[in-house]
């Protein structure tokens, strides 16, 4: 599946920094999400459940969403730069994170669901809003992180320079000319 996506051209390429862009975008997107979480008092019950304060829970949420943004950049790579589709990819990603993270941890695994009523709705809204903001700001942030179209020495020039003519990573490996045939 991953090879198919790579063949389709989703690899970010040498001028792009999707993970850095994801980290920054994920953190920036936490601002509106935290506002919703605080407004709906969605952090209070989880904080009580693990014996900490809402402030510590907010910081933990920010850290997790930073990682979430990095994961988004790593997964979507070039596609995350799409200014027309970014909002959708981000929101879908936020929804998936809600489904795979808070739902099992807060609602299924405990004896009783930790979040009920408006705090539960707030968590879903916050994750959707985080994803939406992430997808929207990612292309804008990434644009400023692109390295220029200058040729750089080192590994990049090996993949774009004349040696690229012998790249066989997409083909069946050829026997090495340095080793005698068996």
């Amino acid at each position, binding site marked *: 599946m991953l090879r198919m996506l*790579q*063949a*389709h*051209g*989703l*690899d970010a*390429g*040498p*001028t*792009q920094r999707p993970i850095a862009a994801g980290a920054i975008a994920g953190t920036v997107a936490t601002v509106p999400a935290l506002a919703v979480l605080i407004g709906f008092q969605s952090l209070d019950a989880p904080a009580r459940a693990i014996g900490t304060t809402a402030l510590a829970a907010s910081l933990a949420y920010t850290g997790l969403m930073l990682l979430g943004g990095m994961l988004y950049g790593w997964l979507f790579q*070039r*596609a995350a*730069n*799409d*200014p*027309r*589709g970014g909002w*959708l990819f981000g*929101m*879908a990603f936020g929804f998936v994170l809600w*489904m795979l993270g808070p*739902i099992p941890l807060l*609602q*299924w695994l405990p004896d009783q*669901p930790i*979040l*009920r*009523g*408006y705090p*539960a*709705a707030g968590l*879903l809204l916050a994750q959707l809003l985080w994803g939406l903001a992430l997808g929207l700001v990612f*292309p804008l942030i990434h644009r400023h992180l*692109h390295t220029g*179209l200058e*040729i750089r020495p080192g590994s*990049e*020039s090996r*993949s*774009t*320079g*004349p040696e*690229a*003519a*012998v*790249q*066989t*990573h*997409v083909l069946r490996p050829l026997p090495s000319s340095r080793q005698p045939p068996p």
Partner: protein
Amino acid sequence: MIRSVAYSRAILAGMAGAVAWEITARLLIWAGVPFFDLVMTLGTLTLPNASPGVSWLAGMAVHLLVGAIWAVFYAYFFWSVLPLRPVFQGMAFAFVPMPLAILIMHPQFDLMHPLIQSGQWPSSGLFGLSGGVHEPLSIGAGHLIWGSVLGLLYTRPVGYPTNRPPHLSKRPARARPLISSAAAPSDHRFMFATGIECSYPTLEDGRWRMDQMAACGHYRYWRTDLQLVRDLGLRYLRYGPPLHLIYRGPGQYDWNFLDEVSAEMHRLGIVPIMDLCHFGLPDWLQNFQNPEVPQALADYARALAQRYPWVRFYTPVNEMYVCAKLSALEGLWNEQCRDERAFVTAVRHLAKASVLMMQAIATERPDAVFVNSESGEFYQPCCPDPKIRRIAAFENERRFLPLDLLYARPVHEDTRAYLDQHGMPNEEYAWFMQQDVRQRSILGVDYYEWNEKLIDSNGQAQALGELFGWYAIAGQYYRRYRRPMMHTETNRMDARDGPRWLWRQWHNVELIRQTGVPVVGFTWYSLTDQVDWDIALREPLGTVNPVGLFDLNRDPRMVGLAYQHLVRLFGSELGKALTIEEVLARASQTAIWEARRHHA
């Protein structure tokens, strides 16, 4: 971008599906059938204390919004993936949100819902099953209704009806295009080029236009595109103005868009190789079976040369062989015929158009240079079966047919008989043989991995991949026509393999130059990714082919950097190569010498 998405159509289709779901649900609920009332659940979740009408409106708004979002998701990631009719594609896609709704959203809504939490409404349990199976079943049925409506309505994301073309520019036309100080090279030597993919054939008996400039976003981002050409260090650009949008009728031209583009090209010092007819015609000219096409295109060429007198490089008709074959022999584009006579007719008209266009342009600009771009084809017989060998030999002659007519080279006697049998009058053949438009021509040979074909034991052509390569195939074309050459198109469908393919194509060019063949240019085609070329534009699916130097977001691909690297590495050396004028003069002298030798 992996898919070209028609946003408004996807949103409307998703909302229509949501409406169909609600109509069905409302009718069944009124009829007393136990059916989960999704809209009222959403409405009371959003506004628990509102009146039923207001709750319904709120719920419907959320329902429409969710339906639209999933529809855009479908358009991006699912549409045309399965080989099913659109309605069944939509129904199949419904199985993606359906389990999420049944197993996740429905129980979670219970936990969020104030009326359920207060005990006023019953809970459906952890996975929504405690109220009986009718709730999950009705949610499933609702999704299938939504999916089938979505699939039915979301089709053809790229292109447009031929009678509803896009509006390109609202600025009024100036008397003459603005021309600023030019930074373009005064003498043209080896040309490192790229191109803007601009094919515009029609499908569905002329009712639907596949317009690559629209699908690839060029009409929106044309300024960015031109700047990217310069950012890569390139100056030469194969550029096909949208003939079908410019040429409105006999003597009627809408130059607004091209005026702006050409002024920007001039400002940036980009040298366009103007590609005047690229696989399509304006609606009023219908298709390549129309005998009025050659003269109409000649009129267009003259008008364009008059309006843009600084343009010097022209491709009158792009890939005549491919255009005739896919339009008249394989039934994919334009006239969509599948017979030999139609093919011969299309070839006659395309070749005649090319001749007349070159003559018309030369009248306006005697020093114009013509890059006659043609697909480099080759057919290899699979086995010693005489029948298979005959088919391959015939195809290997037929691939040259449009160029033979254009360059007044007498065709093989079997091909002559073929032309005669399929309706080419002797006088017309004689007319072609009397023309002489070669003097200022460069022969462009395009090459892709599917250009070499095997005639299999059933007599069918199968793509071979790169067997002999551009060096061998272009060499055949050179030996036949003895014109200066240019590698006018290549790319690779697998983006990972782009740099490797680029360098290998370039080494083909280097080797053939070392053997004395005057190659004056190289082209990676195109600047950006393309849409639906993996299926030869036969259907408007919107699949993005990652072949460009830049993707459709205008972010560089690895092959873009590789091409920049190549140009920097070889640019200075080839900057000292002979000028195009010198190469053309030498080719003319060689032709005269060979004619004398042949005569002697």
